[in-house]
């Protein structure tokens, strides 16, 4: 997956941002926070997972997604988002 493919979709970036912020989450909650519908969220998650950026854990019917710790690209994206968000925060006086 090329880098522009990841970052060209606003939905995907939103999902990555949520996962970087929260750590791990189920689809419905990701969809709610990203303001996307379930099917779209599911598609984005699948794309991201197919490219090894995220992975999921299953508890019966419950799927919980998180960043793939073992993929250096995933870790770099996570760090980028974290650094970006940090820089956006207003400086405390």
């Amino acid at each position, binding site marked *: 997956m090329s880098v522009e493919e990841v970052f060209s979709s606003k939905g995907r970036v939103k999902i990555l941002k949520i996962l970087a912020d*929260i*750590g*791990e*989450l*189920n689809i*419905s*909650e990701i969809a709610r926070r990203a303001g996307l519908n379930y099917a779209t969220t599911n598609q984005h998650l699948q794309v991201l997972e197919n490219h090894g950026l995220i992975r999921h*854990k299953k*508890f*019966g*019917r*419950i799927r*919980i997604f998180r960043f793939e710790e073992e993929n250096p690209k995933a870790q770099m994206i996570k760090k980028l988002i974290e650094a970006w968000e940090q820089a956006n925060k207003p400086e405390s006086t």
Partner: protein
Amino acid sequence: MPQYFSVFKDESKLDVNYIPPSLPHRGAQLSLLDQFFRFAAESPGKMTQRVMITGNIGTGKTVLSQHFGFNIAREARERGINLNYVHVNCRECKGSLFMILQRTILKFYPHFPRRGYSAEELLQGLMQILDEQNAYLILALDELEALIRVEGSDPLYNLTRVQEERPKAPQRLSLICILRQPECLDALDPSARSTLQRNIIRLEEYSKLQLQDILNDRVNLAFGHGTIFAPTVDLIAELASSEGGDARYAIELLWRAGKYADASEVREVSPECVRKAAVSVYPVVRKDMISSLGLHEKLFLLGVARRFRQAGTAYMSMGEAEDAYAVVCEEYGEKKRGHTQLWKYVKDLSMSGIIEAKASGAGHRGKTTLISLPRVPASDLEEELSKALM
């Protein structure tokens, strides 16, 4: 700026949820618990344990379990064992196994989805999490009566048998069941009962001397030096022991007496402060009790208290209580709940002992539930509730 003097040095040590570093007069029970669960800190996974703690209000059931649980979990961690102690109050969970398991899982996975799954799925999920994290769990179910009343035998049966479906896997889930009356287990079916009734720790009510020791411990932790003396502590112990050896009542009395002293701007908690406090604390209506009620339960109870204060009668019918509640709802701008929900509140409130409810018998036209308020003056209850609703 004027300097305010307080008799307290650390008020939080008198909070109902505070766990003191030592438990006077519960050493024997603590070491019994320790023996029951020794394996958990030494060779976990080989077996699980189920222990029942029973005793009246304020005999130290909750604090005993928490004190033990947090200590053993810490000890196990030092040995490199991932042993967790989770304490859940079944009444706060409205007697629902789903909510109990959800609270438990959230300790391991703070973002676990909050709805959409059955209690059975959650139980399987919990076991899977324990397996994945190689963790062991001692789950304390406080006020177990609520769970039995709402869901019957099945939850306990499932919790005790979940290991049997996985015979070769390590045993990970142990239970501490905390309840007031062991008789409520009679409502369980025999198979669920037999798995629980092996290890019972019965806590007797505290004597006056024991209460004195407990109070002295708390005085040292919470009050400034020279602000409260032995005769005052004796008086509190005396009052609490006449209320059935209720230590929680004694501690609340101690706290209130301190508050009265602060309010009257004196530098010592005198027996007079205790007497004033005793008038305002009723053993069944304590602030922790009131704060655990839901908004509409409070509103309903406020309606009942007001009606009793105004009418001066001993009993009121369900219909009258509903009318009084409707007025209170209007006052607080809340949409009123329906009859069935109110009837559930009446059942819950009478279980907790604030009100009493009985079916109207002969001499009444039709059939209704008669509510009475035998233990608390209506005006005091009204005052407490109004404060809580502010």
